[in-house]
């Protein structure tokens, strides 16, 4: 009787491995989706963004500027515009993301101390391109501008040691922590993969009990547990945990190395966080499964609750920028809190104590899950607690 949960555990492992649905979710979907997502961003960073240049001056200085553009690792001139080109159409026709317009008399005006503006048009329908272009265009233009200023300053008499301090008095030394390479695979794949693990585990757990009722196998389960509901839950929990941890192992031990994703933090802390995160999702899934007898409706609830988790997690768009209701909704999804803890460990290598707030929040979710499980046990007690006669079948 004491080891009833162990029999349930074995039974559940067998049941899940035989289920086509579980095989799809635990095997096919992670392998296919993780590798598709990783492959999308496999290059890591965008280089050589295609740009067009319209040199209306054709002078030494304009050519110098163009050389600066060519030297930028982020830009690649793929089209030289002529007066016949319509700026708006060039974006689409020539598939460029930016247009650099060097005005007429550019060189002459610079020599005459008339400020010159280089007009840069960025295709900001995609802000990834827009931001990169903004950064590169500012850098190149400021560099040339500073070079001109230095040339103007020198003849006026200045201590050579003070030139830099005069032209650029504040030197911003930027230190980037957590993905210093600005690598998109490091940035997006871990986040997307963990949200999918949450969904997989939640979906399957939300069918853990109601599926037994549907397939008329519950009596067998009840008998194996000797009518002890907690043995049933514990046995099933351990089986789901084995599958959940296998998914995490697959992600961290295979997918991460394949795409060269580093883990900066402590594996032990990460393991504790993952264990709690998986437990919360299994428990919430169990709660729904016990509460909602119709497994399709349970699945609906699971899909509806989990699908927006990534958008609300604040990963790509910060929670503080969301309207109050949305930021509130973000707080009621366990993934939001897991992600914060996950990023702290995996990217910033913070000590364990810094993820304690997230651990606490996940424990609150666990308490809620236990409450839903108890509620399910009460609501469906007639289906859960079978008469002794049936339980011995």
């Amino acid at each position, binding site marked *: 009787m004491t080891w009833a949960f162990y029999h349930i555990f074995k039974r559940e492992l067998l049941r899940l491995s035989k289920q*086509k649905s579980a095989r799809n979710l635990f095997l096919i979907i992670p392998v296919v989706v993780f590798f598709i997502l990783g492959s999308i961003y496999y290059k890591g960073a965008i280089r050589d963004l295609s740009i067009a240049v319209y040199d209306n001056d054709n002078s030494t200085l304009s050519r110098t500027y163009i050389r600066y553009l060519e030297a930028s690792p982020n830009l690649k001139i793929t089209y030289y515009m002529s007066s016949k080109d319509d700026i708006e159409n060039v974006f689409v026709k020539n598939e460029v993301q930016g247009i650099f317009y060097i005005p007429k008399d550019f060189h002459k005006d610079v020599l005459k101390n008339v*400020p*010159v503006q280089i007009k840069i048009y960025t295709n900001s329908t995609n802000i990834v391109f827009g931001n990169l272009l903004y950064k590169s265009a500012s850098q190149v233009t400021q560099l040339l501008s500073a070079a001109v200023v230095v040339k103007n300053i020198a003849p006026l008499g200045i201590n050579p040691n003070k030139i830099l301090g005069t032209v650029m008095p504040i030197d911003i030394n930027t*230190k980037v922590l957590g993905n210093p390479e*600005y690598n998109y695979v490091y940035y997006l794949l871990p986040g997307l993969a963990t949200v999918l693990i949450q969904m997989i585990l939640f979906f399957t757990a939300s069918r853990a009990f109601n599926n037994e009722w549907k397939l008329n196998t519950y009596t067998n389960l009840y008998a194996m547990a000797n009518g002890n509901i907690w043995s049933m839950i514990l046995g099933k929990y351990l089986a789901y945990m084995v599958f959940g941890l296998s998914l995490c192992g697959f992600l961290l031990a295979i997918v991460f190395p394949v795409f060269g994703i580093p883990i900066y933090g402590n594996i032990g802390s990460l393991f504790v966080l993952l264990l709690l995160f998986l437990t919360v999702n299994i428990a919430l899934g169990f709660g729904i499964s016990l509460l909602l007898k*119709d497994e399709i409706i349970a699945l609906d609830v699971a899909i509806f609750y989990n699908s927006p988790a990534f958008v609300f997690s604040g990963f790509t768009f910060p929670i503080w920028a969301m309207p109050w209701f*949305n930021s509130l909704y973000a707080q009621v999804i366990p993934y939001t809190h897991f992600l914060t803890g996950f990023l702290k460990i995996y990217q910033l290598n913070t000590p364990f104590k*810094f993820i304690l707030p997230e651990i606490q929040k996940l424990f609150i979710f666990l308490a809620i899950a236990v409450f839903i499980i108890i509620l399910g046990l009460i609501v469906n007690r007639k289906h859960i607690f079978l008469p002794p006669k049936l339980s011995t079948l």
Partner: protein
Amino acid sequence: MNLKIIWILLKKEATQVYNDHSILLALLAAPLLYFALMGSTYFNKDEEKVSVGIVDLDQSQSSKAFLNKINATQKIKIIQACNNLAEAKHGFNSFDVQALVHIPKGFEKKLKAHESTPIALILNNSKFLSSNDVNKAVNLVAMEYAEKSRETFFESKGINPSLAVKKAQPITAQINAVYNPTNNYGNFLLPALLILILHQTLLIGFSESVALDREKNQVALRFKESEYNFLNYILGKTGFYILLYSAYMLLTFLVAYPIFDLPINGSLFSLIIVSILFFIAAIFYGWFVSSFFKSQARAMEIMAFTSYPVFLITGITWSFKEMPWVLQFISNLIPLKPYFEFLKKQTIMGVDNYLYRTEIIQLLILLLIGYVAALLRFKYLQKRELKSKLTQVI
């Protein structure tokens, strides 16, 4: 093709949707709720006031003035002032601040002596958007100081102030973010996100219905009711969805777009026509894929997991050219890819007709592929049903 049969099948499909809570939820509740919930997430379009911590070891007037300037920018809000880096690291590790500005001792002295004054900017780059915004804002403030310093130098050499201003910044970049003037996140993502919501709820609801037919062994009955005519069957089965999602599409462009302040710079008429074509293509594809599912639950599970890969493979968040050719090839076979391109050109960019001709041709080819795939699958299933019926009779 028999319109009467199609109408009967269409009504039957509507009844099936009405009677199945799950399909009803996917088709009627989910699109509207997701529109409200996910659409409003980006209502503010962009982030402001990213929390930043400071370590001002100089504690001078100049350092305070510099920090005030940073704090005055739209993107930054200084929320934590620390006495040393160790203390500041605590806020950084707790994610209370997204970046740290560290001003070393001697900042003012060096600034006044016209020496280059290093300032450390430590960024938490685990989330790109905030990190980029802080970096940009701090560098812009540093540039302001550079201009001021150059002006002062020129003035000190007897150059009149107005000329000094010109000499301080001889070349500037006027960067115009075309089509999305504030380069904001909402205008970038929302149009595609709204369409993705429609696409995914349609696929989930529709695939549930197709799988349900197989689960309840009703496929043979439906074939019989359609008099074994593919057009009768497919139009009867999908007509309800085409009508419903055409209505959703109108709701998106006529109601959701104005609410979320999204532009439609091209022709609304072509937008509607091409959108209907897109939904029909998606439905053909959906029917073909769903016809392999024998269980409603399995169809739902699988379809729910297609959202992220289908969305991201279209290159909406990344450079399409930078993807492996296999993924580019697969992406080009999905109707969402040319449709997103068309949508961008038609709504945000408002370009001339001939510049989105390629996308329309691609969409029509995909529509044809979807139709042929569905037709062949129909013929196969029909043959199988007849065979099994024959076996039963024998």
